[in-house]
């Protein structure tokens, strides 16, 4: 057990160092625009469909569950605000980040891990190129640009799907649903979601790149690094989300639902 704790602390330390290296590299060497654009396309545009589908179905299923229960209590009108706050503050950023971790975190760890075991990382260094500057910084920048957009899309499509279900299937009047939803959704709710998504995105890149950069033992090692990147990123998202929720609920509180 102490060995496991030591390893975890060592791992966290390495992640911290990678983050510092990336910031220093960004400040001193800038960003490679070609690499950053390629990563924005891969992360931002490539993840659109999966994030939209996740957001839409999560919003719809949450609306259904909320409506059934609230309607029994005569609180059917609370469905809109509850879905909105849940999508903005929790489900949108967390599920979008989990999807990006599964899709792009795995890809990053596999690509960088393969480069590591086939000596391409050594080749970069041999040509005087810093692997952090070449591989990590463009991905960090790309996720900083992409993640808020992806989270906003997940939230937006979640709300649209929730409205479609509540209005078209359960018969709640559209103006009532929209009025309640807009009245109880604050800017702070949206900002919370976007902030969380950005933090989760940075975690995904740092964890996945770190796993890739430390891959060993050929193809088996790359597979192991890929699995660990996804698992570690997903756990980090869920754990950090808990602490961020506590913090942001104090700094950026939501409105009270007054029916």
């Amino acid at each position, binding site marked *: 057990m102490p060995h496991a704790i030591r390893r975890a602390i060592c791992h966290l330390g390495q992640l911290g160092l990678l983050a510092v290296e990336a910031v220093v590299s960004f400040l001193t060497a800038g960003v490679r625009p070609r690499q950053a654009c390629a990563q924005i396309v891969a992360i931002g545009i490539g993840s659109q469909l999966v994030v939209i589908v996740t957001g839409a179905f999560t919003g719809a299923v949450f609306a259904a569950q909320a409506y059934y229960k609230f309607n029994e209590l005569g609180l059917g009108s609370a469905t809109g605000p509850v879905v909105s706050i849940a999508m903005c503050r929790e489900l949108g950023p967390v599920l979008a980040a989990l999807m990006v971790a599964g899709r792009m975190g795995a890809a990053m760890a596999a*690509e960088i891990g*393969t*480069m590591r075991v*086939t*000596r*391409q990382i*050594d*080749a970069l*260094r*041999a*040509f*005087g*190129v*810093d692997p952090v500057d070449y591989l990590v910084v463009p991905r960090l920048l790309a996720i900083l640009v992409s993640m808020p957009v992806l989270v906003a899309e997940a939230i937006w499509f979640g709300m649209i799907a929730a409205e479609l279900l509540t209005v078209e299937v359960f018969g709640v009047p559209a103006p009532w649903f929209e009025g309640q939803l807009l009245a109880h959704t604050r800017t702070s709710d949206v900002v919370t979601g976007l902030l969380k998504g950005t933090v989760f995105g940075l975690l995904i890149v740092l964890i996945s790149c770190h796993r890739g950069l430390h891959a060993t033992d050929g193809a088996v090692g790359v597979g192991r690094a890929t699995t660990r990147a996804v698992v570690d990123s997903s756990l980090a998202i869920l754990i950090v989300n808990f602490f961020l929720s506590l913090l942001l609920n104090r700094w950026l509180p939501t409105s009270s639902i007054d029916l």
Partner: protein
Amino acid sequence: MSGDPDIPPFFEVRDLRQTLDGQEVLRGVSLDVPTGKTTVILGGSGAGKSVLLRHLNGLMKPLAGTVKALGTDLGPLSEKALRPIRRRIGVLFQDGALFDSMDVGANVAFPLREQGERDPAVIAARVDEVLSLVGLRHQERKMPDALSGGMRKRVSLARALAARPDCLLYDEPTAGLDPILSENITRLIARLQSGFHLTSVMVTHHLGSMRFVADQVVFLKDGVVRYAGDPGGLDRSDDPDIREFLSADAMGRE
């Protein structure tokens, strides 16, 4: 030793020690690599040849001892401080280590771009020139996974040459190639050597390659230098391990 005493050695290695996974791989290696000459590091598998080579451009830091390139001790240098030195040293990696995501042309142009060359015409001309040197003209658009082992090595050699380095490090340039390809690569290296007078360090276990290109031979066994001198002297050595290595190679050729 074949170096000119008036010209300082390109690399100076003193009492270099290194371990991998707790095993001692280099045990006090000392050698000079003369400027403008070809030094071949010879030895069997696991002798520590490639590990020694990785110290010469700072890809590995010494556990103890010093490695100097152009008079600069590489050990204490940061990655950033190593960059100007590394840019003067080209490397041909054992399996080529070509960048999978780039075609041949982009691979070869990579060191040029990294050294700040932005003019596409200049880059294209140099890429064409070095690909012609290695016999791969008009192959710029091919991706690395479409190349044979020999072609990958030649592209890697072209990439190493592209930025006009002062020194080339070859890690097992003929490993995994059939005898004909192996001889072609060796002849190519010898031709480049005579044409550009680069300082070269070649790690190999092929005596044939060594005899073709070497000005100086270093024989490593279990992380210790057992012979360092001219290639002819190796054949006259009484060291039983060297005799065994030479006779094993002779048997392999029969």
